[in-house]
């Protein structure tokens, strides 16, 4: 872990899912310096989902997942890099759009496909690109006191290689 001013850099081993829990607790507590417990919990869940996603798509022998957490006047900004398989460029845009199920149809309830949808619901901005063999994610969550134009809804940005 490296700490510079209001920025903290973390490296997470991609083959050790148990360490993600520790990361979640760490990010939640950092977020509590800016957000209330509900906001900090939302950041915790979103980032656990993001790192889980990186672990799921990791290639054998890939280097550590790198995460940069930055406290800013408007909230938090988190950048995530990994060497995993590239995602379908449309996956982020599509996430959550087809999240529909009949709650009474127990046998057809979805067991997966929730991660990206949750991230989009919990963060104000999400962007993804695949470049130089790496996946680059950026997430922002605005403090409620940030201007309305920043915090109106989740904006997603997807860039190709």
């Amino acid at each position, binding site marked *: 872990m490296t700490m510079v001013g209001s920025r903290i850099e973390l490296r997470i081993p991609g083959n050790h899912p148990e360490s993600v829990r520790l990361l979640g607790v760490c990010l939640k507590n950092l977020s509590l310096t800016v957000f209330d417990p509900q906001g900090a919990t939302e950041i915790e869940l979103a980032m656990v989902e993001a790192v889980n996603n990186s672990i799921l798509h990791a290639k054998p022998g890939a280097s550590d997942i790198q995460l940069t957490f930055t406290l800013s006047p408007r909230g938090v900004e988190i950048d995530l890099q990994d060497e995993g398989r590239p995602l379908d460029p449309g996956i982020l845009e599509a996430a959550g759009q087809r999240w529909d199920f009949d709650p009474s149809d127990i046998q057809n*309830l979805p*067991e997966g496909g*929730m991660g990206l949808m949750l991230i989009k619901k919990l963060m104000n901005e999400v962007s993804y690109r695949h470049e130089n063999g790496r996946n680059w994610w950026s997430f922002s969550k605005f403090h409620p006191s940030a201007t309305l134009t920043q915090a109106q809804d989740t904006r997603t940005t997807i860039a190709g290689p």
Partner: protein
Amino acid sequence: MNLLDNTINGIHILTIDAPQLDYAAADDFKLGVANRVHQGADRLILDMTQVNFMDSSGLGAVVACMKLVGDPKRLPLCNVAPPVLTLLKLTRMDQVFLVYPTVQAAVEALQP
């Protein structure tokens, strides 16, 4: 992932003995519940008193267990912490699971 067993009025109370149900614990949890069901537990209550964090993998595991028992009345949840309840609401799974404030409330609701 350790699961603690208790029985009240023929209902199997399963307590998750861990502070989180996440990607790392999901498979163990599913296996543990499946073992109880295969051994004859047909009415269960999932006591989540100790769980203060659940991610989508953990929720997926609970959904898989629901499919195994086939009926929300046979796998209600109780003592659900606010962050877990938030996850249920965000995914609309709060419309699937019966949630009770205590084990006793769940037991009373399950009485014929």
